[in-house]
């Protein structure tokens, strides 16, 4: 049983640009994912719109402003604001990206990867423990899509994530689109990545659709995580693999561009729900077979 019901809840990330449409179409979604930073720094009207949804639909909390990977102490004032938003949303979990976005004097407002080393993992582990002590709901880390690698990286993506999650007890918000893109862009096997995750570690899932980018200075096209197009079938196939091994609480469609393509959004929701339902059916059938054999 998840906090949302017997099966993974399916929803979208709330975006104020289509807030009216979202409120008029709540019946299509089991839950919404709220970006806590929109409640903290996007102004009173956006925050009010979001908080008015409390009690109408369950919401989980997601962050983009922590920059946990910046090699400076965690911003405690920011964490306290997050804690307050999480409480108001009655969110059952709070997630953030395993990434950095800024350093003193610069803020790229874009998620950047970290060197995948044990030393960096140690620093993240202590920050996660601090976050867990201040935010009274389970903390989840999200895998990002990345375009470049740090030359000193010595671990694979999954080794780095597993080490941090194992040492802290943090769950994983698995972005299957990011996994799909990274596997394509950096040439690794996404199914092997999924197989190397401990069972049960995936608590939430993101899916989205991106674009292919071709530039004259790139040796080959890159897939970019633009959250702008329908979810590719390849990403949904990875979702099947996830659902076969894990029981996430939610599967969230992320959409940040071409937001007025409502038919595409609802079509993606139906496609995701079909995969979730099929996995539920498969898991129920497997449980019945096990019970019968006992």
């Amino acid at each position, binding site marked *: 049983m998840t906090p949302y019901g017997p099966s993974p809840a399916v929803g979208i990330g709330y975006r104020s640009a289509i807030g009216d449409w979202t409120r008029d179409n709540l019946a299509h979604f089991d839950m919404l994912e709220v970006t806590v*930073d929109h409640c903290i*720094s*996007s*102004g*009173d*009207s956006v925050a*009010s719109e979001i908080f008015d949804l409390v009690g109408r639909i369950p919401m989980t909390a997601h962050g*983009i*402003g922590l920059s946990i990977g*910046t*090699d*400076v102490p965690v911003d405690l004032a920011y964490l306290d604001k997050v804690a307050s938003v999480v409480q108001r949303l009655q969110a059952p979990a709070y997630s953030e990206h395993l990434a*950095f*976005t*800024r*350093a*003193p*004097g*610069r*803020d*790229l*407002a*874009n998620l*950047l990867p970290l*060197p995948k080393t044990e030393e*960096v993992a140690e*620093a993240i582990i202590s920050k996660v423990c601090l976050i867990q002590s201040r935010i009274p709901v389970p903390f989840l880390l999200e895998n990002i899509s990345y*375009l*470049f*690698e*740090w*030359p*000193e990286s010595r671990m694979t993506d999954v080794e780095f994530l597993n080490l941090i999650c194992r040492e802290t007890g943090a769950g994983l918000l698995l972005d299957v689109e990011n996994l799909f893109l990274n596997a394509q862009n950096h040439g690794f096997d996404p199914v092997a990545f999924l197989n190397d995750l401990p069972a049960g570690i995936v608590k939430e899932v993101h899916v989205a659709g991106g674009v292919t*980018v071709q*530039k004259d*200075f*790139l*040796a080959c096209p*890159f897939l*970019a995580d633009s959250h702008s197009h329908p979810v590719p079938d390849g990403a949904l196939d990875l979702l099947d693999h996830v659902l076969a091994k894990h029981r996430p609480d939610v599967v969230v469609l992320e959409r940040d561009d071409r937001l007025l393509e409502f038919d595409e959004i609802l079509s993606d929701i139906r496609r995701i729900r079909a995969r979730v339902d099929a996995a539920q059916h498969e898991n129920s059938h497997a449980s019945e077979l096990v019970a019968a054999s006992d």
Partner: protein
Amino acid sequence: MPRNMRIVMPASLLQRQIDLLEYLTSADAIFGESADAPSVPHLQGFDLAPLRLEARFSHEKRMEKIIAAFPRTFELLGGDQATVVRDFVAACPSVDIRRIENARQFYDFVCARWEAKPPQPPYLRDVASCELAMTRLRIKHKARPAQPVAAGRAIRFRRDRDAVFLPCAYDIRPVFEGGPGEAPQRRDVVLASLVPPGSGQPAVFEVPAPVYGLLVELDNWTDRAALGGMEGMDELITDLAEHGLLEVIR
């Protein structure tokens, strides 16, 4: 140790993050054609092509925020857009994720630029000021229902705290009203930008000089009786309240 020998210490992760962001926000990474290694220290070993792609993505996202705040300013910049953006990137790297902070950074940059060389068209500064005010209003805005105001001696009022008054050298309302062929007229005018009651979007309208003078005085709650019985005062108060320029309580 020989005097010309330096001890090379490994750079801290923080220093390398700072250097990386410095490069990713540089004009060289965003616009550069060169495949040479960046001059920023501590970036040896990185593959430059994906770094440049990252820089361009981040720049495009930042400019989307800024253009969304200044749509008419960018339209009026016309053929100067590319030069202005390049110079802006070189002078003002991204320091904040928020839309309003990036908008303010751009506004400060173009104002400084226009101090040195007046803009074309000459009313561009007024348009940019108005668009910055409207962006702030969109962020601060709380919905207010339209309420009929019955003026009378029992009411109190003050200037609406969110209304922004813009002394302009041009009457730029045609730019925002979208009238075909109407060019802004050169005349000193005070424009007000605010979200009218019952509306969700900022509007721009003229405030006549005497009314502006009155509104400036109404910083604190004021009794109707304090303004005396001048003819037309009740109508003016009602009109200002209906436009959202006055907050009124009984």
